[in-house]
């Protein structure tokens, strides 16, 4: 499932995938895969993304069942 909340948060901070990738020390393709829902990141990477986007884990990654 696509992570549109992460994509929106990144766009709100006016960051490209490449810039977010550099902030999180991963490749641009990894950020792209997370946004497209092709890859489930570890909690460590989730935290790095949240810190880079000034969001909480719940805001970006928690899905109500």
């Amino acid at each position, binding site marked *: 499932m696509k992570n549109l909340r992460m*994509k929106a948060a990144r766009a709100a901070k006016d960051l*490209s*995938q*490449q810039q977010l*990738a*550099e902030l999180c*020390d*991963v*490749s*641009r*393709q*990894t950020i*792209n*895969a997370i*946004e497209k829902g092709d*890859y489930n*990141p*570890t909690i*460590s*990477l989730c935290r790095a993304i949240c810190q880079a986007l000034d969001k909480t884990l719940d805001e970006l990654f928690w899905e109500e069942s």
Partner: protein
Amino acid sequence: MENMSLIVIFIAVLLFAAFFRMGLRKSYTGHYDERQLLVRGKANQYGFTVTILCTLAGIFLLEAPWYPLDAQLTMLLCVLVGIAVHLVYCIFHDAYYFPNQKPGRYIVIVVLALLCNLPAPIARLYEGSLLDGGRLTYWTGANLAAAVFLAVILLALLIRRFTGRDEE
């Protein structure tokens, strides 16, 4: 004597690769990210499986009278095919380069290595000595095998470079 020179060349290449790697480490402290490590693990599995299957097929093929390669070249091909599977899988899943690494330098290295391997088989082809007793042997075909291997890797790198732009 041939074996001795082969060992010397092997050690020289190993030392060159080690020094090259040390130089790279000093100039760039890169690492693969978590997704890339997963992809590379899968690529290792595929590469290993293909190498084993090719080796088994090679053992049977060597018995066939029509088979045009000698045993040493067949084993070299098995290894090269396995490595090619590993590398192509990594390249097409964006797990070949470190994050933020520029690919241009590596493409130049692959092109240079490819060019280094071309003169010998071309010269043998013109001399008519590419086949030895109707078979392509390790001594006459190893450079050709390496050139084909590098051409496959180069092609994969170029295809990925020009088709891999998937940002929204």
